[in-house]
C-alpha cells in the first residue's frame, strides 16, 4: 500500500475526531492568551511583545513547553483509542500489515506535531500584525531576561533592610499596654515591606528597546529556523508520547507516565546522579536525557542571531550579562534525532512482536 493511501486513512480518522480539534483550538486559545496578555499591557508592561523580524523567536520563548503537553495528550488519545476500540485489530484484519498500521500511525503523529507547531506560530504572526497595525511599541521596565541586575538587587536589599529595621523598632518600643495592638503593628510591618518593594521597583533602570522596523518581513529566515527547531523538539515529544501510547495502550497510563517523566523523573535522575555519582557525572549525563535534549532545539536563541542581538541590546541597557547561545548542531539536531530514532524503533520492535 502506498504512503499516500496510509495518510488518507489516518486523515479520515483524525479530522472527524472532535477531540483533535478541541485540543488544537485550546492550544490556539492559550497561545493567544499567552502572547495577547502582554499585548494588553499585561504582567511585564510590554505593549507589543512580538516584533518582526523576530516575532517567532519571541513567541517560541513565550510558549515554552506548553505546546508539547497538548501535543503529547493528543497523540496519546489518537493512538490508545485504536486499542481500546480494537480498531487497530480490525485494521489489520481488514488487510493492513502490522508494519503498515505502525507506519500510518507514526505518519499521523508527525502530521499532528506539525499542526501543533503551526498553530502557535500562526497566532504569533497574528499578534505581530496587530502590534504593527496599532503601532504599539515595547515599553517594558524589565528585560525579557528574568535575572535582575546586581544594581537592582543591591537597591532592593537596601530598601528592604531599612524598612524592616524601622518596623522592628516600632514593635520593640511598644509598652505592655500596647501589646494588644501587636497584630495591628504586624499589619503595619507588612505594609512597610510592601512599600519597600514598590520603592525598589521604582528604582530599577529602564530597559531600552530598539524601535521596531515597520518594513521588516513578518517572517524572517531566522524565524523559519526557530520554527524548524521547535518542530524538531515537538516531534521528539510526539515520539515519546507515541511510544508510551503504543506500549501501554492506556490513555491514563501513557499520559501519567509522560507527565511524570516530563515534570519530575528526569530531574530526579539528575539528583540521583549527583547524590550517588558526582556533580561532574550529572553535568555530563543530564543534558543528554530526553526532555533536556528535546528542549534544546526549541530554544529560539540558538537559531536567530538578530533576536539574540536585540536581547543583548536590551540587556546592555539594564547592565545585565549578555545572552549566549550554544549552537552545537550535534546536540541541537543530532541528539533529538537520535532520541526520536530510539523511541520509534523500540516502539516498532515491541509492537511487531506483540499480539494485537
Amino acid at each position, binding site marked *: *500500500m502506498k504512503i499516500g*493511501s496510509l495518510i*488518507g*486513512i489516518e486523515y*479520515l*480518522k483524525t479530522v*472527524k*475526531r*472532535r477531540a483533535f480539534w478541541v485540543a488544537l483550538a485550546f492550544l490556539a486559545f492559550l497561545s493567544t492568551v499567552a502572547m495577547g496578555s502582554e499585548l494588553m499591557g499585561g504582567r511585564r508592561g510590554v505593549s507589543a511583545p512580538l516584533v518582526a523580524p523576530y516575532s517567532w523567536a519571541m513567541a517560541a520563548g513565550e510558549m515554552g513547553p506548553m505546546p508539547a503537553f497538548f501535543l503529547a495528550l493528543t497523540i496519546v488519545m489518537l493512538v490508545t483509542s485504536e486499542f481500546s*476500540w*480494537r*480498531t487497530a*485489530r*480490525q*485494521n*489489520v*484484519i*481488514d*488487510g*493492513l*500489515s*502490522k508494519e503498515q498500521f505502525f507506519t500510518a500511525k507514526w505518519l499521523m503523529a508527525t502530521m499532528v506535531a506539525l499542526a501543533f507547531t503551526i498553530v502557535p506560530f500562526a497566532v504569533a504572526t497574528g499578534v505581530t500584525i496587530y502590534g504593527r497595525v496599532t503601532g504599539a511599541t515595547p515599553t517594558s521596565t524589565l528585560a525579557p531576561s528574568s535575572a535582575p541586575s546586581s544594581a537592582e538587587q543591591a537597591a532592593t536589599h537596601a530598601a528592604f533592610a531599612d524598612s524592616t529595621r524601622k518596623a522592628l523598632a516600632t514593635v520593640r518600643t511598644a509598652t505592655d499596654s500596647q501589646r494588644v495592638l501587636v497584630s495591628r503593628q504586624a499589619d503595619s510591618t507588612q505594609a512597610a515591606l510592601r512599600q519597600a518593594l514598590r520603592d525598589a521597583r521604582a528604582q530599577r533602570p529602564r530597559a531600552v528597546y530598539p524601535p521596531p522596523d515597520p518594513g521588516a518581513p513578518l517572517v524572517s529566515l531566522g524565524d523559519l529556523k526557530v520554527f524548524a527547531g521547535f518542530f524538531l523538539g515537538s516531534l521528539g515529544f510526539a515520539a515519546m508520547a507515541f511510544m508510551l501510547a503504543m506500549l501501554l495502550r492506556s490513555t491514563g497510563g501513557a499520559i501519567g507516565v509522560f507527565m511524570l517523566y516530563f515534570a519530575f523523573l528526569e530531574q530526579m535522575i539528575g539528583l540521583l546522579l549527583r547524590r550517588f555519582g558526582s556533580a561532574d557525572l550529572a553535568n555530563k549525563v543530564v543534558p543528554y536525557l530526553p526532555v533536556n535534549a528535546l528542549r534544546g532545539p526549541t530554544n529560539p536563541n540558538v537559531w536567530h542571531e538578530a533576536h539574540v542581538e536585540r536581547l543583548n541590546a536590551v540587556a546592555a541597557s539594564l547592565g545585565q550579562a549578555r545572552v549566549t547561545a550554544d549552537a552545537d548542531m550535534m546536540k541541537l539536531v543530532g541528539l533529538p534525532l537520535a532520541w526520536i530514532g530510539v523511541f520509534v524503533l523500540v516502539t516498532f520492535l515491541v509492537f511487531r*512482536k506483540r*499480539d*494485537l
Partner: protein
Amino acid sequence: MTILETSGLTKRYGRLTAVDHVSLSVEKGQVFGFLGPNGSGKTTTIGMLLGIITPSGGAFRMFGRDGGDELHAARRRIGATLETPNFYPYLSGRDNLRVAARIKGVAEDRIGEALDIVGLTGRQKDAFRKYSLGMKQRLALAATMLGDPELIILDEPANGLDPEGMREVREIILALAARGATIFLSSHLLNEVERTCTHVAILRSGKVVRQSAVRDLVAGATVASVASDDLAALRRIVAEYPAATGTEERGDRLFVHLADDDLASLNRFAHERGVTFSHLAVEKRTLEDVFIEATAKDAVGGAA
C-alpha cells in the same frame, strides 16, 4: 478446492494451551460452523488465522498460500470480524466503511450496496456509537462483504441479538453464501449453527473433538422415546430387547438408544410380551445433543 486448512495450529500462553493442535479443513462453498463453549479457543484460533495473534506452533494455508507476505495478500480476499464489531464510535456508519474500503483497496462506490444489503442505508450518516447492537452487527457484516471476499470469517455474529436480529443476521449470512462466498463462523448458539451451517467443527479446551457435515453429525443412532402404564414391565422388556444399546429414564418416559432405526420391531417385541406402549416416538438427535456429548469431560480424544 480447499479454502482454509490448518494443521496442528497451537497457541500457548505460558503454561496454558489455549489452542491445541487444531487441524481444520474448509472447502469452497461451505458454511462452516466453529462451535465450542466460551473459552474453548475459538476466538484465539480465528485471531491466528487473521494475523493478529502469533501462533506458537503449527501452520495454516489460505487459498493454498502460506507464509508471511503471501498470507498477507490472501487476507485481502477475506472479510472478517473478531469478537464485537470494532468500529470508530465517532465516525458515521458510512465513514467507518470508507476506512475499511480504503484499507481493502475497494472502490468507495461499493459501500452503498453493502449498506443496502444489511438495511442500514437510512442510518448511514449516524455515528456508530448511536447504533443498536443489532445495527452494529449488521454494519460489521457490511464491512466484511466489501469487495466480494471469497472467504468470510465471522466471530459470534449473532451474539447478544434478539430473535428478530438473529433472523436478520442469519438471512444476510445465507444470502452471502448464496452469492458463492465460503463462510466460517464461530458460535455457541447451536440452534443458529444448525440452521445456517453445512459443516461444523466442535472445539473443547482448545482441541477439535468433532468435525463433519452437520447432516452426518446429527444422523446416526436413533433414540426411541416410549411410555407405558406399567413402567416396571417396560423397563424389563427394554432391557431384554436385543437392539437396545442403552436406556435413560426421564419422568415417565424411557429413552431407548437403538442400534437400528426399526421402531416397528421394538413395538412388536413389547406387544408380544404383553406390554402396550402408551407413547412411541423417534427423538431426533440435535446438534445440541452432539455438542453436549462432544464437550462433556470424558469426550476428549474422541474423533479429532
